[in-house]
């Protein structure tokens, strides 16, 4: 089993009102020095089988087709090795 992570972010030139709202809230909570916040989405997809280039290409297609809108968003895909698959368990 392999986990593929798709990070979707609004394109830099697209206004991000949610990020702006978070940016406005932080100083009110006493967090200083934050100059910008952009809010995106993270998808974790678990696929059968070992990580492979074919599966990565397939996930990339999913990201282009459904998970992101290329008009307003950019995305990145990467593979995460699952702890279980590596025989490790978190305490």
């Amino acid at each position, binding site marked *: 089993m392999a986990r593929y992570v798709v990070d979707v972010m*609004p394109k830099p030139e*697209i*206004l991000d*009102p949610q990020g702006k*709202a978070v940016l406005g809230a932080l100083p009110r909570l006493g967090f200083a020095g934050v100059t910008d916040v952009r809010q995106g989405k993270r998808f974790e997809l678990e696929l059968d089988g070992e990580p492979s280039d074919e599966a990565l290409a397939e996930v990339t297609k999913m990201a282009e087709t459904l998970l992101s*809108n290329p008009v*307003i968003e950019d995305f990145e895909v990467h593979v995460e090795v699952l702890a279980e698959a590596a025989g490790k368990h978190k305490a």
Partner: protein
Amino acid sequence: MKIGVVTFPGSLDDVDAQRAVRIGGHEAVALWHGDHDLRGVDAVVLPGGFSYGDYLRCGAISRFAPVMTEVVEAAGRGMPVLGICNGFQILCESHLLPGALIRNDHRKFVCRDQRLRIENNRTAWTSAYDEGAEVTIVLKNGEGGFVADEPTLDRLEGEGLVVARYLDDNPNGSARAIAGITNDRGNVVGLMPHPEHAVEDLTGPGTDGLGFFTSLAAATFA
């Protein structure tokens, strides 16, 4: 004419749209998102609401609803398709119209009577209006900010594909105050405000929205 109104899970304005279709002099046909069937209609309205709970992105999941296969195919053949609010978002997600709709720049839901200018009366849905007509219809959206890259915006302006533009205040941060656009052929129209809520004097700000539902008889089948 038979005008189909698609109901998705989470559609809100499908019944109002059906009523507006009837007041406009047509037969309203209820279409279901899960059917691969347009039931022989001559035109389709994708109504407002929050289909699929606006999950992922507004319109992103509806775009892949079974009925949309037929809607996209029929639009390609020239069938008139009007997307209102959430319907506009679905048309953009379906790539039947360029651009996208994002959260209002002021981050608040807006609900008001909105003045618009009809800038293109050569579409299947706007031929009942005079070009440049100023109308007041209901606007209600949380994610109504129209965006597209600059070349796309220039093309929309240059080719007269902007159907309606906001007058007075820009209510949601739309690029160039664009309220509605059409495709090259003029059969597909997306509009953020709600003409179906302005078809009777009893409710809403007047009857300025009725033209969207009477245009079909005047234009497409003249």
